């Protein structure tokens, strides 16, 4: 098939302008990411309460600035009297952990398959790319849901589920990159020198697609966080009582009329973080690998 399918929602497609537009470092995004990382690492120090400790007399307290709120619970409490601020803080940890593992596994598998397909070419290439096409046009979240239900919810399952969703996006772009790298002289030279194919792929090809790979990783962090939140929202994510943002939004959904903060705050957190990662990813792409704009 000549029909090329690029991931639509990653919006790597941008200006067709050949000249390299240099953008300033997106300070705001950078700051949000730094704060998020800090919060996730230092969660026990920053949280004011235990994220799972229930206290029914304190349930559904509004945030501190609203009438009836107190500084004891900065962002109010949920149905079970758990502190929303502390749950958000620990939720950041969950989001980032899942994102890290899922990106590593999905990214590395995609990298390996992309390199293999691009380097081997021929039948191997067309077979692998057919699988990639099928994966991209299939609502892979369905497979992720089956995984969650059959293997039981947990960190391992959700990482596996997201891996299934994202590997094909990596494989497609990496393969395209390898196609150009492998025609370069140093690859032919290595071959003449008697390097094995495995050695050429590992030592000569990998370093040359690493930039692209890093940019892809960054561009996908936001996407992975949204997928994780969606799976948690659908009851197929990290199981309670561990706080995760998607699940917090789901829990607060039925009380949106009386307690807006339960759903609104974690949702806003997801949006802010994803926005920051995406802007940061765009900037990194322009800086490291502007050609990716046209992918």
């Amino acid at each position, binding site marked *: *098939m000549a029909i*090329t399918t690029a991931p639509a929602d990653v919006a790597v497609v941008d200006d067709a302008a050949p000249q390299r537009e240099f953008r300033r470092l997106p300070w705001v995004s950078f700051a949000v990411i730094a704060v998020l990382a800090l919060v996730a690492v230092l969660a026990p120090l920053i949280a004011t309460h235990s994220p799972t400790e229930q206290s029914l007399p304190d349930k559904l307290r509004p945030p501190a600035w609203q009438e009836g709120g107190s500084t004891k619970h900065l962002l109010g409490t949920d149905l079970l009297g758990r502190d929303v601020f502390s749950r958000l803080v620990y939720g950041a940890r969950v989001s980032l952990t899942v994102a890290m593992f899922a990106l590593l596994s999905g990214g590395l598998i995609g990298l390996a398959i992309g390199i293999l397909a691009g380097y081997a070419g021929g039948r191997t290439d067309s077979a692998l790319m057919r699988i990639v096409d099928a994966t991209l046009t299939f609502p892979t979240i369905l497979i992720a*849901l089956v995984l969650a*239900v059959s293997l039981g919810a947990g960190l391992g399952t959700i990482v596996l589920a997201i891996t299934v969703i994202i590997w094909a996006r990596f494989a497609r772009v990496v393969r395209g990159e390898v196609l150009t790298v492998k025609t370069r002289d140093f690859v032919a030279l290595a071959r003449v020198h008697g390097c094995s194919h495995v050695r050429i792929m590992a030592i000569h090809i990998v370093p040359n697609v690493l930039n692209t790979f890093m940019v892809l990783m960054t561009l996908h962090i936001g996407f992975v966080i949204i997928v994780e939140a969606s799976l948690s929202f659908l009851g197929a994510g990290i199981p309670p009582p561990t706080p995760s943002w998607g699940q917090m*939004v789901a829990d607060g959904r039925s009380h949106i009329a009386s307690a807006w903060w339960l759903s609104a705050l974690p949702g806003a957190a*997801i949006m802010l973080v994803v926005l920051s990662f995406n802007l940061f990813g765009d900037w990194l792409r322009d800086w490291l690998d502007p050609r990716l704009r046209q992918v």
Partner: protein
Amino acid sequence: MQRFILRRFFQSLVVLLVVAVVVFALARVTGNAADLLLPEDAGREDREHLLKALGLDRPMHEQLARFLKGALSGDLGMSIRYRKPAVEVFFERLPNTLTLVPIALLSAIVISIPLGLLAAVYRGTIIDRVSGAIAVLGIATPSFWLGIVLIYIFSIQLGWLPSARMGGPAHYILPTITLAAFLVAGMMRLVRSSVLEVLNSEFVKLARIKGLSQTVVIWKHCLRNALIPVVTLFGVFFALLVTGAIVTETVFAWPGVGRLTYEAVIFRDYPLLQAVILLKAMIVLGVNLAVDILYAYLDPRVRYS
């Protein structure tokens, strides 16, 4: 052309078969289906009896063969929660989704194509910036959260629109926005970048040299060609739509197949989930096949690659 159709059809069948085998294999990982069906106080004998009745005591390849045979004749097992054939439950709900999804798809197209076009034509101006900002925000907003925020603003605070379930035309507004927003961001950027590319092409320059007006050049010469990638990516957009429908229908308690998927997950109704996934897979693959054939018909280059 016939060879192309046959080849594509065969590919779709293979994908479907892979999905069926994966779903089947995962069902065995779940532990025994018998344990889900039996009451907790069931004895050992009851269990063995049920295992035999369900054919779960047979070797794995025989079970797989039986499952595939059943699937071919439209039997995908009984839903645990509804105590009805899962296929039946699915088709009861399907019409509700089929009223929502086309409206959302149409709205997304109607919004994103002009916006993307305007952003490209007025590149670098305020219009481009605003549409860029909408796209960036749209990608970063989880659609389940967007739905909840819309409900909070338009149903609870303003009281203008109903917040859940099916009903008159007003019931369609919020779910449509939620579902369409999912697509608009991606589509708009795609249209913008492909219009930009086309604007630089030789035939557009020629059209200008011929003295055609800006309107004709843009609407007739540019847009037509710029829409090719949008058509090409229809499969991806459709997959996004199916995914989006799960979340949107869940938020708005819309009794369609998306909501059914969510229920199957929440109640751990594995037979139902299995049926939903296989049937959805069939629909998605069918739509993709149809689009590819249409595309190959329109663009002969595709057939021979």
